[in-house]
């Protein structure tokens, strides 16, 4: 019996205890579990990866997934509505924006779930607050400091250890979703060049480590913080440098920052980093004015980047391990404004992409007439999607991470679903 099996048997024996699968493994087994996890191939929960894509600024959902059968849409948006003839039709009622051709191809191949009308009660229309709500998975009346990914990593630390590279964000700073008790997860904007720049004549990384040892706490919390970041940076840099050298890809990615971030994620996934969560952000969706061209370009950048990424992972034989989840802090107002744009709104469609999905349109379509202050009323709580992904894809206990039970949706297909 391999060590991997030993671990799953332990896990099985503990299954009755209402904790995230494998989250309460004793420390001495942990090392075995995480050591084997990266060596074993296949698609079991231990090797699963979630790639979270943030569409920052508030994506206009109604011009992304377009309810073309509803005249209200065309009346509310005399300048912005996309003509029916240009749409990529999905069913008798909705079609995708013409810039999403690449996404439509994936949809046709059974790799895309679109959940319509995703939001939360008492929606907040501030970018910052609503983004915080999505990152922390709180309700709109509660402020949490920890993020849902951070809490997932905390809950699973016993299984995966205290490795800072368990979550990697392709951003300048750690997203709030990563915040957690253990402070796991790092921001790595440029993996190829992510390393401490050694100095001349003995100013080497060992001395840098010795100068900045985080082993002992001081009276100065800021100092401790910087030292921890430095330690994480140096530790992660070693691991990331090791995997970047192995990666070879035949896929040509579009020449955009978003695609380049996804390429780096593909490199790290293929290189076998133990990372469970990747985070990438595409921004510019705050289209208050002259929205048509900007939004079209952004959707194209999004779809083409994702398509190249999926193709790359397929060629690497890694796509089965991976699921993409997109979100934006909110959708936008149903009616357009005077500036040829749209103001902050509420519910939005969410995309879940990968071979493991039960493809198609999910969720109840929000009404364009039964509005709350000119905004859509949500039909699926975003935390239901988190809960589903956490349990059915990552095999962890959602209640432990989200604090409440949220009804799951069946967006992961039977084959990929964790037991």
């Amino acid at each position, binding site marked *: 019996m391999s060590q991997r099996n030993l671990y799953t048997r332990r896990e099985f024996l503990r299954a009755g205890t209402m904790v995230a699968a494998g989250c309460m493994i004793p420390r001495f087994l942990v090392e075995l579990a995480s050591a084997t996890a990266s060596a074993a191939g296949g698609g079991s929960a231990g090797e699963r990866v979630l790639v979270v894509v943030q569409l920052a600024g508030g994506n206009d959902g109604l011009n992304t997934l377009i309810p073309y059968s509803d005249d209200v849409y065309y009346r509310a948006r005399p300048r912005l509505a996309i003509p029916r003839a240009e749409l990529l039709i999905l069913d008798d009622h909705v079609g995708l924006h013409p810039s999403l051709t690449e996404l439509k191809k994936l949809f046709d191949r059974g790799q895309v779930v679109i959940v319509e009308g995703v939001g939360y009660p008492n929606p907040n229309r501030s970018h910052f607050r609503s983004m915080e709500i999505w990152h922390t998975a709180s309700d709109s009346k509660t402020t949490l400091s920890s993020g849902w990914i951070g809490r997932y990593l905390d809950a699973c630390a016993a299984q995966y250890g205290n490795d800072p590279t368990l979550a990697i964000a392709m951003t300048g700073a750690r997203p709030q979703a990563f915040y957690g008790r253990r402070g796991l997860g790092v921001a*790595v904007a440029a993996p190829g060049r992510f390393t401490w720049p050694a*100095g001349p004549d*003995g100013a080497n990384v060992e001395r840098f480590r*010795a100068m900045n040892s985080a082993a002992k706490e001081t009276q100065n919390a800021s100092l401790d913080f910087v030292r921890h970041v430095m330690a994480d940076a140096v530790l992660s840099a070693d691991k990331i440098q090791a995997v970047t050298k192995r990666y070879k890809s035949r896929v040509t990615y579009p020449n955009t920052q978003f695609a380049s971030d996804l390429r780096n994620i593909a490199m790290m996934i293929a290189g076998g980093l133990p990372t469970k969560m990747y985070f990438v952000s595409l921004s510019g969706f705050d289209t208050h004015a002259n929205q048509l061209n900007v939004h079209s370009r952004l959707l194209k950048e999004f779809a083409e980047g994702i398509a190249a990424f999926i193709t790359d992972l397929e060629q690497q034989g890694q796509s089965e391990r991976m699921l993409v989840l997109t979100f934006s802090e909110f959708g936008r107002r149903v009616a357009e404004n005077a500036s040829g744009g749209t103001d902050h709104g509420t519910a939005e469609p969410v995309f879940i992409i990968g071979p493991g999905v039960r493809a198609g349109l999910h969720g109840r379509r929000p009404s364009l007439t039964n509005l709350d202050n000119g905004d859509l009323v949500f039909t699926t709580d975003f935390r239901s999607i988190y809960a589903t992904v956490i349990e059915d894809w990552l095999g962890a206990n959602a209640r432990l991470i989200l604090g409440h039970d949220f009804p799951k949706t069946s967006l992961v297909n039977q084959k990929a679903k964790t037991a």
Partner: protein
Amino acid sequence: MSLVAPVTQIPSFVWDTSKARHLLERAGFGIPPSAIQRLAAMSPQEAVESLVSYERYPDPYPQLQDLPPVDDEQMARKKLSQLSAEERQRLLRERRQTEREAMVRLQMWWLERMRTTPRPLQEKMTLFWHGHFAVSAEKVRFARLLYDLNTVMRRYAVGNFGQLVRAVGKSPAMLAYLDNRTSRKDSPNENWARELFELFTLGEGHYTERDIKEAARAFTGWTSRGDQFVFVARNHDDGTKSIFGRVGRFDGDAVIDLVLQQPACAEFICKKLWTFFAYENPEEEIVKELSKTLRNSNYELAPVLRQMFLSQAFYSPKAVASQLKSPAQYVIQLTGQLGTELPPAPITVAAMRAMGQELFHPPNVKGWEGGRSWITTNTVFVRCSFARYLLTGEPPQGARLARAERIPRRPDEAGRNPETSTIMRDAGVASDDMTMSDSSIDAFLLALANPGLPREPRQSVSLPFDINKFFAPYENWKVEKLVSSLTAYFLPVGLSDNQRRVLLDLATESENKSGEKAGLVRDLSLSKRQALMYLLLSAAEYQLC
């Protein structure tokens, strides 16, 4: 004793160089280092006065000249429509290029001003307002408009907050950034009204969605033409509005009056000021006392700043050496302490961007998050690279490999450099909301690898910093003494014995000419000096102020 009690009333309070250093680092940029001694020799009140009442010192810094003018949009459109498609393309391309170069000049102009000003608090407060009333060049692409807004912030830096809000609201840069420019009564744009309440004056929870919608109506008609504010009456909704429970035919100025009457406003500003200058999450008592001062002075800022810089909490252990330097602070203080010039524009701008604070490019309307967000696994490496460049002139390893195809040619023999603006163009990739892109770090590495100058071909590209000159007064010192002295000069807190040992081991592992272990500073080779300084500046302690 109250937390904001003046230190002059605290018998046990001792005004010394470490307190003076703290004041200079927070109310300014910690430079010139010699000013610490001068401030320490004054009384605390005199020291604070010399920073706050800066009007008495003349401001010799030149205005920024020759920024491209901002045409009236209608005129410009008309002019363009008379051209052929080809000419139009060329004109627009030239225009974009001119604006990009102007934007770089604007950034360097301000950084240089921060470095050399006799009024450090004026620049520090301008930087505060720059992050508070955030406007990004990613959207507002006219350097002229951004410069004008910067000038407004500098004018009211420690002046009247009410006047400042009004002037910002009417600045063409803000009118464009938050779309009020195109807001009309038939369908008002809420962007400015929302951020005015949420981010600029009151904070969340002190207004309703309805207040925003009504206020947006009041601001309709506020627009701009070229670089001037204009009020267009026919676009203005002069009907009755209900805002904060008050009903009237309010216009934009009336809404700002209403905002200033909200108790939340003074508290919001004072909390943010304390967070910026002292520490995060100030005690309620502090916010209450400061906002009382702000309201009593009818929103004059100088009295609040005086009170803050003289309060005992400002000098408490919770405040001293507890802040993470912002990139602006880091770059200004580091070059100031080394006594070296700012690196050439491409390097400086790219470095600031990779550190997460490119001036005039805040990530979003909330400005820079500040605090701990400055220090990330990315930015610690970038900061170290920047310090290493200043000390050794060395670009980071791999810089040449990074997108080699983009590396521009070196200047030709005549000193002309037809290609160099490419650096800035490559670096001109949008920096976006809440992220700092891969390309920003690439651009920084590239700029380090190719410090050729686009604008001033005559400026030499020599070693940025003359370390031997810096060490000259200490050649006969023992290495131990040098290490202690450098530590005290650069770091706001001391080092542990272990850390000192690391530095001493590094310094003394080489041998002098007679084969003995290096004991005196003069025994240290150039590379050893660079290594020692580099390791010291790579210390976590150097990120604090």
